[in-house]
Structures are given as structure tokens and as C-alpha cells.
């Protein structure tokens, strides 16, 4: 559509055309009040995009305010491209997690790829070199052909981008549940490193300074992506969705290398990725956060297609684009810097002192609105929250132990559950060792990367068991944080900060908003107790298919500091003869468990209880023991419980097995998902020191060289006795087997 054919101000109001852009009548009225006149088509587009849930957090803000965001390590909390934490020696870790759920539901390869691309730009726009990627994925259980397609393509898309740009994917998780059927969650996290003096921010300051556009040209792709991602997708509507933006990791690498070189230059004032809502959000946010205005000549924006309107250019979500503000007079030097990398950079505007975002096209002002109004003055909604009826019902249910006749058969079946089974099919497609610093690759509790040139490391993980969150959002939120911290501790790292990706259904449903509110409260509690503040994050609402929301899934991305690489510990058994200890006792916790889902085809009852003080005490004790070199291997107990965790310790330990004796009722001892539990192995000579350090640890047996997993119960009964080979083959081949099924 050419600008001539755009509806005029009156038509927009009278025909309520703003509604098609996702704006409500009240919001449109508010825009009218702010401007003191009716907005034109371009201006309406700007407001609708910047005031979308995705950009403005208008429904989630009141909840997000309660997260603990400060701590002695925090250098930059939420609000910038990514959060920053101090890791000592004048270095800092920079990280952020983002969702790309809606695009991945439609075009999974492109959607997942551009998700990785976007979050990488968030990190390098802060001046940090990205060093690792983590992904957190949720799909239907692979019995449906569409879900298999979505999973295969999303994994290939992530691989194409991460491998193409040459940044290793070192950790991640995949959960399979039919609540995600046709509505997958694709969350990507990027972690970068910088020296303190190189921190950059997205600010457009200094009157007369120059606004430079760098990177890919602007096309008509992804227009109104931000609005779309805040809307529910019904399968029938897919055909009407806007053209998706494609990704180009090759160009991104060039843009990244150029931006990182620019970050060292004193010509730079600020830079920001053109992410959701593209040029609109980048320009409005940079101007607003610096307290200035920006004027841009839209004719100068590099364009991929002819006849583009200002509206289209401002709302395009073409990928691999950066908005940069440089000192007046230094433009050519910056343009030359980009040219060296083969990247186009063009001066398109200047910083002004009138705090307006002003767009000029063909010599005429086509939009003129206060930058603050776009970036800061979106309405804030206090959505209605209501406890869903299922919650009371589940809470009042008496938890009983499931009846299991065949213990070994049940263990094998659990190992084949895709959520528990080996994810090698997925992570073998990711180059996990690029840039030669990967100490622990995917497959252990957390990924660990060496901090270049030091003997320190960063451990990273992402976690969320959404079944627990559904049954009891507050408890589930706590568990998500605790589990992430457990995974870091088991890897020898001190948890230092959190990024999150809060994936929920429609906030207009009071029950969904209640889930959001309660799980955020649980997350806040756990972050405080475990001393891991939230430094960045993302909210993805309206994840529903045909009106049914996915389970509430507040994914927690956590980064830990490995003070000395000799502390790095992995899941696998190390030496025959080592002692096996379990930390924490099993109680009957089957609500939301993998066993319950497997036996009953659904979940119900209470989520496992968690006592955060017990959690913190155990984590601190175990970490200290690991740092004192008392521990050979460590893993936490999660989905599937004790028996699954014990097997996982044997799977990558060539020739080793286990012989253990456990107390209490067999089904509970083997399969319950009681929280705050760990399995560790210790050399015999360290047993005394370890027992003194970790008071809750109970010795249960030995690592053997028999290549069998033997679990004995009370009174000399043998509960499970099977070769590692047999168990491993069930676990290892399960996902590929499901993908190859024809059903």
C-alpha cells in the first residue's frame, strides 16, 4: 500500500481501524489525548507496536516490579538489551533470554533461527561478545506429525543460526507435553562477556549527534510482529499472518564483529538492536531513555523493496539491523568501519532536544510524536486475577503412591519418555565447541564455558517443570528457580543471577493471570533465598491454541560462576569403588510427576513441596564440598526421580555401574519427585570429610565395574538389576524412535 492510499485520520477513528493493529478503543483515546489531535496512519502504527504487550509489558509490569533485581554483582538490571553481572577481575557476564514462540509455531525453522539471532543482538548491543547460547524448548509429545515437524524444524533452525554465526550452544532443555501441541515454546538465551569499561547502552544523547542505520536492508517482512506475538494464534488464522522475517547468520556475524569493534571507539554514543517493532522501538526507546528526541529521514533508510511507506519501514522486523548514535563529525569513520566488514551503514537522522520522534518522508513530516509517550506512557493494566477452581480441588487431593507392578519395566518406560530420554538427537546438531572454550558440553547438569584467558568459568542452564507450575504456580515457580540453581551447583558453580522467559496464556483470562501472579511470587521468593537476582527477561503471553492456554511456563535461565575450573563437576560416575550418596529423603511426591503422567495420561494433585531454606542449606553445603574437591560427580534428582538419575550417572561412564540399597517403600524411593535432592559420588578416602560437610547425605552404595545398575530394597530384596547397556539403549534411542514413527 502506498502512503497515498493509507486511510486518513478520520477513517482510522470512525472505522476503528486501530483495532486491526491490536489497539483498544481506550488506548486510541489515550493517544488522541497525548497528541491533542488524531494520529495519522503511521503514528497509529507506532503507538500500536510500542504499546503492544511484547514491547510495553503493559499487563505484566505490575507483577515484574516485585522481582528482586539488585545485588552486589548487578551492574545492569532489567530495562536494557540484556542484564549485566560482575564476575570479578573487571569482567562481567551479560545475558538475556527471549521467546520466539509465535513465529516458531508458524515457520519453526525461521522462527527458531531468528529467535537466536535476536537475543544475540541484545547481548552484543551492550558491547559484549556472545560466548554461548542456551535454548529452552517445549513441544507436544511427538505422537502428532505436526509436532514432530515443529520440533525437527525448530532444532534445525537453532542449529543453522548458532552454527552459522559460530557461537556454541552449550546447554538447554526440552520438555514434551501435549499442552504444547501446535503451540511450541522456543526460548533462546545468549550469554556474553565484556570488560566493565566497554559497557554500552541504547541511548541517543547529545543534540546534533548522528543516527546511523547499520545492517540488513528493510523489507516488508515481519510488519507488526510485535503485535502478532501478543495475540493468540488459532490454527485457521495462520494464513492471514504477516510475512515472517527471515534470518541470515552470516550477515549477523559481520554486523556483530563490526559492532564489537565500534564498541571500543569513543565515537559511539549508544546502540540498540532493531528487534520487536523494529526501527520504531529502537528509535523511540533510545531517545526516551536518554531524554532526547530523534529526527529521521525515511528516504535514507536502506530499503529492500520499492515504494515502501514510512509506516512499513518503521514497523518492519527485518533481521540483522542495528540503530547506532555516533558523535557528530565521526560518521564517515563509523561507516568505513562497517564497510570493512561488508556491512552497509547509513546516516539517517540526528538527535534533537525536543524529545519528539519525528519522521520525514519525501520532504514532509509524516509522524511527530513524543518519544516518551511511545516508550514509557503505555497504559498499565492491573488484570483481573482469579484462583482457578482446579487449584482447590488439586490441593485437597490426598497423595497416594501409584501402583506399580513391574519396577524394572516402569524404569525402562520412564527412560523412554521424551522429556527424560537423551536429547542427543537435538544437541548433536549444535556446534557446542566453537570458539574453543567449552568445558562442559550439553548432556550434563549445566553447560560450562571457560572465561577466556582465565581459570574461571561460567555455568549456565535453563529450567522449568511446567507441570508443577500448573498444579501449584507459586510452588512451581520456586522449584523452577531452585532446580536451575541445583544444576549450577552440581556443575561446581555459584549461582549469581537469573534471566527469565515468562510464557503464559492470555492475560485476559483471570485464571491465567492468577497463574502468572502466583508463579512470579514463587520465583521472587526463591531468587531472594538463593541470592540470584533477576537481571533481564521477557514475557510471552497469549500462548494458546484455539482458546486453550499452555501450562504456565516461567522458564528460568541461570548463570553461575565457577571460581576455579578445577571445581567443574559432571553427572557421570568417575571411578569404580567410589561411594554413592543421596542427599535428601524421598516422600510421596507424585503430583505432576513423569510417572503420574505416564500411568494416568494426565496430571493432578499437589506439586512436590519445597522448603527454600532446606534447599539453600543443601546447595551451599554441596557447593562447598565440591569446591573442596570432595566430590567426583553430582546430579540433582528431577523428572523420574531417583532411579532415572542413578541410571543417567552410568550412561556416559564407560564400563561402570552401581550397586545401591535404598530404604522405604520401593515406588516412592525409586520414582518420587521429591525436591531438593542430589546424587553424588565420593572417593572412599574423602568419605569422612564429605559426610561432615554435607549433613543430609546418606551413603547408599558403590560405583561398580560390573556395568550393571543394581538397586536393592529393604530385607535384601532386589528391586532392579539390569545392564547399563539395556537401560542406555532405551534412553538413548527414544526420541529418534518417536520421530521416525509413522503414526
Amino acid at each position: 500500500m502506498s502512503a497515498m492510499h493509507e486511510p486518513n485520520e478520520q477513517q482510522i477513528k470512525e472505522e476503528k481501524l486501530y483495532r486491526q493493529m491490536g489497539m483498544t478503543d481506550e488506548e486510541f483515546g489515550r493517544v488522541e489525548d497525548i497528541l491533542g489531535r488524531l494520529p495519522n496512519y503511521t503514528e497509529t502504527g507506532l503507538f500500536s507496536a510500542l504499546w503492544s504487550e511484547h514491547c510495553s509489558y503493559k499487563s505484566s509490569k505490575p507483577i515484574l516490579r516485585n522481582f528482586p533485581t539488585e545485588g552486589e554483582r548487578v551492574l545492569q538490571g532489567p530495562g536494557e538489551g540484556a542484564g549485566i553481572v560482575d564476575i570479578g577481575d573487571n569482567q562481567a557476564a551479560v545475558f538475556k533470554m527471549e521467546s520466539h514462540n509465535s513465529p516458531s509455531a508458524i515457520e519453526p525453522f525461521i522462527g527458531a533461527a531468528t529467535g537466536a539471532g535476536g537475543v544475540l543482538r541484545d547481548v552484543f548491543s551492550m558491547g559484549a561478545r556472545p560466548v554461548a547460547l542456551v535454548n529452552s524448548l517445549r513441544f507436544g509429545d511427538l505422537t502428532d506429525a505436526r509436532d514432530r515437524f515443529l520440533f525437527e524444524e525448530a532444532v534445525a533452525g537453532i542449529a543453522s543460526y548458532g552454527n552459522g554465526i559460530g557461537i556454541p550452544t552449550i546447554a538447554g532443555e526440552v520438555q514434551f507435553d501435549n499442552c504444547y501441541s501446535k503451540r511450541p515454546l522456543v526460548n533462546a538465551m545468549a550469554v556474553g562477556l565484556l570488560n566493565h569499561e566497554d559497557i554500552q547502552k541504547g541511548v541517543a544523547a547529545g543534540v546534533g549527534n548522528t543516527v546511523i542505520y547499520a545492517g540488513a536492508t528493510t523489507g516488508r517482512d515481519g510488519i507488526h510482529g510485535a503485535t502478532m506475538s501478543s495475540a493468540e494464534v488459532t490454527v485457521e488464522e495462520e494464513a492471514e499472518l504477516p510475512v515472517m522475517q527471515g534470518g541470515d547468520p552470516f550477515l549477523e556475524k559481520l554486523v556483530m564483529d563490526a559492532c564489537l569493534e565500534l564498541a571500543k571507539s569513543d565515537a559511539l554514543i549508544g546502540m540498540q538492536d532493531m528487534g520487536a517493532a523494529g526501527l520504531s522501538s529502537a528509535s523511540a526507546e533510545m531517545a526516551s531513555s536518554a531524554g532526547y528526541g530523534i529526527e529521521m529521514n525515511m528516504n535514507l533508510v536502506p530499503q529492500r523493496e520499492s515504494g515502501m511507506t514510512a509506516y512499513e519501514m518503521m514497523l518492519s522486523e527485518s533481521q540483522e539491523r542495528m540503530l547506532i548514535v555516533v558523535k557528530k563529525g565521526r560518521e564517515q569513520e563509523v561507516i568505513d568501519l562497517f564497510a570493512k566488514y561488508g556491512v552497509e551503514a547509513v546516516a539517517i537522522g540526528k538527535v534533537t532536544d525536543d524529545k519528539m520522534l519525528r519522521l520525514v518522508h519525501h520532504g514532509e513530516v509524516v509522524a511527530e510524536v513524543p518519544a516518551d509517550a511511545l516508550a514509557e506512557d503505555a497504559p498499565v493494566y492491573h488484570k483481573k486475577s482469579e484462583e482457578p477452581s482446579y487449584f482447590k480441588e488439586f490441593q485437597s487431593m490426598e497423595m497416594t503412591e501409584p501402583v506399580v507392578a513391574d519396577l524394572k519395566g516402569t524404569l525402562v518406560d520412564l527412560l523412554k519418555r521424551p522429556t527424560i530420554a537423551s536429547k542427543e538427537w537435538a544437541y548433536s546438531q549444535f556446534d557446542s565447541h566453537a570458539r574453543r572454550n567449552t568445558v562442559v558440553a550439553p548432556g550434563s547438569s549445566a553447560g560450562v564455558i571457560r572465561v577466556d584467558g582465565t581459570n574461571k568459568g561460567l555455568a549456565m542452564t535453563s529450567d522449568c517443570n511446567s507441570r508443577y507450575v500448573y498444579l501449584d504456580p507459586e510452588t512451581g515457580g520456586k522449584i523452577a528457580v531452585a532446580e536451575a540453581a541445583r544444576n549450577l551447583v552440581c556443575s561446581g558453580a555459584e549461582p549469581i543471577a537469573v534471566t527469565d522467559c515468562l510464557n503464559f496464556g492470555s492475560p485476559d483470562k483471570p485464571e491465567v493471570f492468577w497463574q502468572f501472579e502466583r508463579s512470579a511470587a514463587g520465583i521472587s521468593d526463591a531468587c531472594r533465598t538463593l541470592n540470584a537476582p533477576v537481571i533481564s527477561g521477557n514475557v510471552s503471553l497469549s500462548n494458546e491454541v484455539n482458546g486453550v492456554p499452555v501450562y504456565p511456563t516461567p522458564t528460568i535461565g541461570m548463570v553461575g560462576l565457577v571460581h576455579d575450573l578445577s571445581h567443574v563437576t559432571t553427572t557421570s560416575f568417575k571411578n569404580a569403588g567410589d561411594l554413592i550418596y543421596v542427599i535428601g529423603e524421598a516422600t510421596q511426591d507424585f503430583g505432576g510427576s513423569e510417572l503420574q503422567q505416564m500411568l494416568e495420561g494426565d496430571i493432578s494433585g499437589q506439586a512436590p513441596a519445597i522448603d527454600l531454606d532446606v534447599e539453600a542449606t543443601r546447595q551451599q553445603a554441596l557447593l562447598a564440598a565440591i569446591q573442596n574437591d570432595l566430590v567426583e560427580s553430582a546430579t540433582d534428582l528431577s523428572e523420574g526421580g531417583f532411579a532415572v538419575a542413578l541410571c543417567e550417572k552410568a550412561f556416559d561412564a564407560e564400563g561402570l555401574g552401581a550397586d545401591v540399597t535404598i530404604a522405604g517403600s520401593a515406588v516412592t524411593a525409586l520414582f518420587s519427585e521429591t525436591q531438593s535432592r542430589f546424587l553424588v559420588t565420593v572417593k572412599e578416602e574423602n568419605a569422612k570429610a564429605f559426610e561432615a560437610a554435607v549433613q543430609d547425605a546418606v551413603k547408599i552404595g558403590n560405583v561398580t565395574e560390573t556395568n550393571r545398575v543394581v538397586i536393592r530394597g529393604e530385607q535384601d530384596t532386589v528391586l532392579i538389576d539390569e545392564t547399563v547397556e539395556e537401560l542406555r539403549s532405551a534412553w538413548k534411542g527414544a526420541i529418534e524412535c518417536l520421530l521416525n514413527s509413522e503414526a
Partner: protein
Amino acid sequence: MKFAILVFPGSGCDVDMYHAINEVLGAEAEYVWHDEAELAGFDAVMVPGGASYGNYLRPGALAKGSPALEQLKAFAASGKPVLGVGNGFQILTEANVLPGAFLLNKGLKFRSGKVKLTVQNTESIFTESYEKDQQILIPFAHQYGNYYVDEETLEELKENNRIAFTYTNGSVDGSTGHIAGVLNEQGNVLGIMPLPERAVEEIIGGTDGLPLFKSILKRWSENNVSHA
């Protein structure tokens, strides 16, 4: 000894190579940007892995059009060592410096991990620090790792001891003759698909790749002592 690391747009594993040579091997390496290449002053050229030109068209196909390739061919013809790893190997086959071509992995997907190789030739500049038939564990990461040569070339490679490394347990990706690394006729150019520069430190990927770089350095030192 001075190593050049020839960098194309998109060559991501240049840093891996730089680290292996400068910080672990203890020799001197320099990045050389492809269109400013002046290779004459160097003692060896490394063509690193990654995704030059985004692997558009075909991996290595666009890099072969770079002005650096003429220089590289001249450098190779002079008898000095040239090593291409991963995408660097693909570039060398595309430029006909090494025989063969790369197809999509048999399983069609990108694959990454560690793989066992058998050292077949221990007489070359690149392999003399290994034992004959030694098995080594080397990281790999590729989508076009399916090396193809025709029957006739395969026989010729075998006869002339030009197969430097094979996949010990067969090639999952489909490579002809399970070839993982191949030498040119003169023996001064090696292409290897797995990534030895990522296996030079115990804590990162093991040290099985280090003897390859030590071999290059050793031969250079011997030659330069004898010339002195």
C-alpha cells in the same frame, strides 16, 4: 615459525586456530584478511573452519573466488605447509588444491561431537608426531562432511599414501573410504574434516590434536636448523 590464518567473511573458527598456535603450541600466528592477503612472508598457511560466506551456494564455493586463493595456490606450490580444517578443507577441494568434493551428510543433518580417527600416514609434515594406526579423539562439527572421490582417485590416494586420517569406526556421514583427512600429491597440503585445533588442551577437548601442530613445527625447526 610464522603461521598465517587466512580469514574469510564468516570463518568463525579462526579464533580456535589462533589460540591453538599462539597460546598452546607457542608459535606465532597472524590473522590475514582474505582480500589483503600477502602470504609470501609466512612459513605455513592455515585455512580455518566456520562458514565462509555463510556457506551460501555450497560450502567453500564462494571463498574460492577470493583473490587470496591464487596466492594460496602459489604458496602451496612452493612446498610450504597448508592446512585446511572443516570449512577450510571444503575451500581447498572447491579450489582444486585437494581432490574430491563434499556432499551433505548421509543423515542430512548438521552433526557435532567427538569422533575417533585412525592415523594412516605418519610420514607427512602434519602427522609425523603420531604413531602409525594410532587412534585419536577429535571434535567435529559439520553438515557437509560427506567426502566424495571416485574409485580411480581413491585407488590413487591409497597407492600414494595420501590418506592421512580415516574414521576408525567407519564414516557416519558417508565419506568415501572413511576418509577424514587427505594430502595433496606433494604431501604439503592437508585437508581434515574434524577439528584438531579444538583438541589441544586437556580441559577443553583433550590433546589428541596437538601432535598435528607439533609435527608442522618440528619439521620447520629441523629444516631451518639444517639450513642454518
